[in-house]
């Protein structure tokens, strides 16, 4: 690997240094000095203001602030700043809990760097997306904003395996990348698959490493840094792709065109999941990857059991293809071990829903949704360490439930469900809903996936179950196979979770959801459900900004509910460049 690292340095360092030199020479030092002074002044003003606010408080208010933390979180944002102006004061106990979690974030990041410091450092120069991961602590902060007590610990517990999974994936990618680490050992066992494919299949190949190709360079990072996808989108749109396609495949194609994806892997499993855009992205990526590719294309109308034979056969052939490509043999014992673990995890997940259906929901907020997507779905029982997380979270959740605790500083005033695909550039939107308006998001559509216990003793049925699982993966379960899965399903969930509000994401490029827009609207009115439509463009905040998204909710809450916000400082603020 060291030889590859040196080769990279020899090839790129002179050029990169030249660019850096040019960048430095172009800096307007007067402007930089003025801006620094302005920032210092703003910081001073903020401190003075904070001190004055505390001085003006009654002793009870001061005590409340000391114990329960601050109430006005909008103050943490400053126009034009990527990070918060400071960390949130959550009260003594919760701040201590947060500090422990914060240390955990740095621990995972440090572990990643220590795996291969040279490759990671070179990766920072080679790939623009990698530097966005340096803002992970800020990402965790914004997704836990307003949380208190054991719920804060739960959120950190949920983030830990997500960060570990992400850190492991990044390190593996860079170490295997033929341009950077080029590790022959890793390259021999690395199989790439489309990030829209689940990884449970890898349970049958314990000696191989399966990595979702675009997950780290495009998909996950877009939830961390709202601006990261813009260059990819612009690149492929300049190439000729219409601007109305979904930003996920669009960004992935853009990343392929810009060569922003590491070059590695023995082969690639592409997929038709979950939508038409994803299906089409393969032809772009193929031209960059130039890897042997197996298109895993499961039937769309998955409720029809007649389609299962085709899906299962495709799954079998995909496994055979991996065997032929890698020389590895499918290991049933290992597969069943992992799937048993995954089944156990599914039971824990269902347990969370059951608690959230009660009048005292406990696991709410973005951490839960992100964990589900980035660990429960993507890792799928492969990493045994995650079981501890499930157990700890379950224990803490049940204890909090018995005490009828509230997860946030702000009380839950409304029970809500989020439907349709979420805006990646506003991963913490449910946090804002709760902190500003007391809208507690009990569950999001993308979390409500397949819950059947997968077969762990009959090989034929196990393959069929694996197919059923893949057919019902995130997004696909709802948007494929007929309107009942997303339209009728919503009303069912609204009833089960006893929700009064549906935050209906209107992803302006998702034609699958757009095609049912009128029926959603009509049926919500018939049922007397408050449906708040919130437009977004998934990975492109230029089309609909975070601020625009908030204004939709603000407007509804003020005009229809005629309510006052719980935190007026969060109603309107600018965060166009905030991570």
């Amino acid at each position, binding site marked *: 690997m060291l030889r590859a690292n040196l080769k990279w340095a020899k090839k790129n360092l002179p050029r990169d240094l030249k660019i850096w030199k040019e960048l430095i020479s172009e800096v307007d030092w007067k402007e930089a000095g003025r801006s620094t002074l302005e920032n210092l002044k703003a910081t001073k003003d903020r401190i003075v203001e904070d001190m004055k606010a505390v001085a003006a408080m009654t002793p009870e208010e001061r005590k409340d602030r000391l114990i329960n933390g601050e109430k006005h979180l909008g103050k943490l944002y400053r126009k034009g700043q990527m990070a918060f102006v400071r960390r949130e004061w959550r009260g003594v106990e919760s701040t201590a809990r947060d500090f422990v979690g914060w240390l955990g974030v740095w621990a995972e990041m440090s572990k990643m760097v220590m795996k291969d410091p040279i490759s990671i450092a070179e990766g920072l120069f080679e790939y623009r997306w990698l530097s966005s991961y340096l803002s992970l602590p800020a990402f965790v902060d914004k997704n836990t904003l307003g949380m208190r007590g054991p719920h804060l610990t739960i959120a950190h517990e949920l983030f830990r395996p997500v960060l570990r999974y992400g850190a492991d994936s990044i390190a593996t990618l860079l170490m295997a990348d033929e341009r950077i680490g080029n590790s022959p050992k890793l390259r021999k066992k690395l199989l790439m698959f489309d990030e829209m494919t689940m990884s449970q299949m890898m349970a049958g190949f314990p000696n191989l490493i399966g990595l979702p190709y675009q997950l780290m360079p495009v998909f996950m990072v877009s939830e961390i840094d709202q601006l990261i996808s813009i260059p990819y989108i612009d690149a*492929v749109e300049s*190439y*000729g*792709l*219409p601007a*109305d*396609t*979904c930003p996920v*495949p669009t960004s992935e*194609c853009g990343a392929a065109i810009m060569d922003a994806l590491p070059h590695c892997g023995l082969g690639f499993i*592409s997929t*038709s999941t979950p*939508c*038409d*855009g994803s*299906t*089409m*992205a*393969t*032809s*772009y990526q*193929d*031209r960059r990857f130039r890897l042997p*590719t197996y*298109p895993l*294309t499961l*039937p*769309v*109308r998955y409720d*029809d059991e*007649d*389609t299962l*034979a*085709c899906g299962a*056969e*495709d799954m079998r*052939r995909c496994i055979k293809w991996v065997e032929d490509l890698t020389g590895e043999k499918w290991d049933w014992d290992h597969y069943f071990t992992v799937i048993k673990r995954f089944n156990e995890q599914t039971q824990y997940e269902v347990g969370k829903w059951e608690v959230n259906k009660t009048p005292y929901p406990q696991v709410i907020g973005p951490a839960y949704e992100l964990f589900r997507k980035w660990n429960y779905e993507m890792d799928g029982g492969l990493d045994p360490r995650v079981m501890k997380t499930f157990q700890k979270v379950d224990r803490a959740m049940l204890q909090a439930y018995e005490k009828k605790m509230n997860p946030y500083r702000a009380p839950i005033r409304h029970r809500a469900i989020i439907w349709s695909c979420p805006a990646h550039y506003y991963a913490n939107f449910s946090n804002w809903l709760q902190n500003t308006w007391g809208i507690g998001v009990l569950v999001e559509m993308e979390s409500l996936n397949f819950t059947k216990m997968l077969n762990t003793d009959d090989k034929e049925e196990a393959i069929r179950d694996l197919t059923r699982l893949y057919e019902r993966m995130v997004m696909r379960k709802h*948007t*494929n*196979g*007929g*309107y009942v899965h997303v339209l009728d399903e919503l009303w069912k969930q609204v009833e089960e979770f006893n929700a009064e509000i549906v935050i209906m994401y*209107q992803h*302006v*490029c998702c*034609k*699958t959801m*757009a*095609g*049912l*827009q*009128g*029926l959603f*609207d009509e049926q919500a009115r018939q049922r007397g459900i408050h449906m708040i439509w919130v437009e977004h463009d998934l990975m492109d905040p230029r089309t609909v900004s975070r601020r625009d998204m908030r204004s939709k909710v603000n407007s509804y809450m003020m005009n229809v509910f005629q309510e006052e916000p719980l935190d007026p400082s969060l109603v309107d603020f600018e965060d166009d460049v905030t991570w």
Partner: protein
Amino acid sequence: MKDLKHLIYFEKLLENSNNELIQQAKSEGKLAVGYTCFHMPEVLLNLDKCFSVRLRAPKTGSMDIATYYMSNYTCEYCRALLERAIEGGLNFLDALAGVDACAEMNRCTENIELVADLPGEKFFVTHADIPYKVEDFTVEHYVTQIRNRVLSRLHEVYGVDISDKAIRRAVDEHNRVCRIITEIGEYRKLSNPPITGYEFHVLNLVTYCCPKYLILDKLQETLEEIRTRQVDPKPWFRARVAIVGSEIDDLDMTRLIEEAGALIVADRFCFGSFPGREVIGLNDHEDVLTQVCRHYLKVSECPRFMSDEKILQRRETADRLAREYGAEGIIYEQIKFCDFWGFERALTSHIQAEEYGHPVLSIDRPYNARSSGQLRTRMQAFVESLEIKRIQKRKQGGERTC
């Protein structure tokens, strides 16, 4: 050239989804089965007393109601059909054979099912699952879907004869139409063809939208006419082009292209003849339904197919057609908001230009093209660029000769 005898008659048939031939067939007790996509094997909707109607929404005006149901950023073809269905323009249908191929069309079909409330007493909508690649097990899957979702439903609801014999009969009739259209289409290879791209589009659309048994004689007559049609000594067109892309059922689109001076010599789009008008060959030793289904999967050029060989097939077909029919350039088009063709057009238009050496015009277009001044300008510019290329080529050839 002298006008084709039946052209105005054919054009008139295309002015309404529920044209006089459909009404005639219905009055004879036939069943109208609507469909929208090539993935639904047309020939199988012509069994026994059924006749297929590939749905269009000619003269579409406002799409406000459909836009409420499907938003303003979905395919206009889908919205136009929904609007037409809600208005009552598709009330003649006895069944709608949908495929879950593209999400937007699937949603359109679902909205028709839930909102439009078509009056047929036994009217039903069915959805078939369509594979993304062509392999033995996906062909089998396709056959099962078509049998269970389409044929069995027609048999159960209307008592339609779906036997092998009935399928063979339908294939025979289908093949007669295909032979006529193919022979007419072949004339486009000539340097001064006795048929225009617009006329061909009219004839071909009629075969998709009318009961076949009612148009065969006039089609045959038109073929005879074309065989002996006198062409003008000086060709009217300035360049020859092939069109590749998503559905075009809008005659104004082809008219607009030809008004700009480009003769359309190859129609590789949905509702075109490549694919769609190939003869279906049947043997006697294999299940007939399987043979028909395999034919449709193999000849399909839909970008939804994502296996390597199908991706390559699409590129090779466009290249082959352009060369065989003497097209000087290719127009890659997509209807606005079509995801499949949006991705395909952007990438393949580069590939055709850079790797296959074809001049390419890449456009997206509305469902109704007539009013688009921008499209007209782009077509004119493309024709000019092809003329310039021709002149440059001639010059270079001349210089080399010198």
